[in-house]
């Protein structure tokens, strides 16, 4: 059997990239069919195939690393670069929405009554549920760090408890935000205030759900003994992502919720 003379991972040929591209095509075309032709079948098909591709692709990565041992330190370094670059790209994504918020709120037009919040808009009180949500995410940052330390120290029980607590805090945040959305006295259609508020906080909420899902997968892997005390990059990537979600919330809270009220 031939052995490689380098520490990189030459992956087996895989169908997931092309199926993933097809799923993206179905999802985007599905959005068009939904918006313009009142049909949601293609969108549903697209989202289901996207989910299937993600599950199988990431399942294969777990197999290649934990079960086949292909993730050498060199490979792990590449994965670290990759995750950092991805999170940076997400930071730029949110930067756009913050730009939009400041564009409209620093110089409010006459149509808004020349003020921010615009005339007639009753903003949410930043000292009520939004402050609780801030405390929840900050606490979850502490618990995920506790989980990481427990993993490196080989303390299985504490790691499981801390990671579970982190995920529960994430769910609590999502539930409270959903309730706030439902009870808010303004909607996305209420001038550029509604647009900036719901698009920025909405995308953040989506990222909280993504982060919670990533952490949940890590919890299952932790329970199934996939992580060792010095090799657990999947968990580190999830923790980085979670801290990023926390930081984005802090900016949202300080600018849109507090300064903007």
């Amino acid at each position, binding site marked *: *059997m031939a052995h490689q003379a380098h520490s990189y991972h030459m*992956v*087996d*040929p*895989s*169908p*997931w990239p092309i*199926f993933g591209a*097809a*799923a993206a*095509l*179905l999802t985007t*075309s599905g959005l068009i*069919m939904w918006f313009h032709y009142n049909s949601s079948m*293609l969108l549903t*098909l*697209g989202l*289901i*195939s996207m989910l*299937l*591709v993600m599950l*199988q692709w990431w399942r*294969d990565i777990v*197999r*290649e690393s*934990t*079960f*086949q*041992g292909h993730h050498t330190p060199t490979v792990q370094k590449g994965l670290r670069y990759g995750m950092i670059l991805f999170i940076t790209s997400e930071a730029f994504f949110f930067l756009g929405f913050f730009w939009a918020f400041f564009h409209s709120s620093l110089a409010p037009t006459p149509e808004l009554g020349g003020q921010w919040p615009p005339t007639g808009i009753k903003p949410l009180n930043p000292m009520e549920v939004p402050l609780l949500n801030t405390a929840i995410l900050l606490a979850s940052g502490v618990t995920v760090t506790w989980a990481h330390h427990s993993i490196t120290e080989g303390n299985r029980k504490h790691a499981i408890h801390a990671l579970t607590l982190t995920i529960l805090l994430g769910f609590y945040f999502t539930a409270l935000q959903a309730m706030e959305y439902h009870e808010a006295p303004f909607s996305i259609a209420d001038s550029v205030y509604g647009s900036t508020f719901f698009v920025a906080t909405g995308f953040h909420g989506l990222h909280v759900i993504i982060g919670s899902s990533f952490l949940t997968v890590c919890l299952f892997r932790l329970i*199934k*003994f*996939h992580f060792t005390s010095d090799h657990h990059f999947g968990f580190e990537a999830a923790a980085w992502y979670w801290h990023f979600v926390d930081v984005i919330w802090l900016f949202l809270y300080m600018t849109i919720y507090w300064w903007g009220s």
Partner: protein
Amino acid sequence: MWRSLRSLRQISQRTISTASRRQLENRVPEKQKLFQEDNGLPVYLKGGAMDGLLYRVTMGLSVFGTGYVLYELMVASMPKKQK
């Protein structure tokens, strides 16, 4: 109160059946053996029959969906005949 709580804890730990105790054991070595078997299978099919089923379902949905998109594109790009 604490003594009864402690004995409750001991009892619940003792009564875990063999089946669930197997679930709490480290089964990574078994998986490592399965996925390192020299059978020429690519990693996306190496786990067993379920892998093949999932692969075919994903392929089916993607291929059917892509065909359907092309069809809808054709329909959308033809002018609607008005009499």
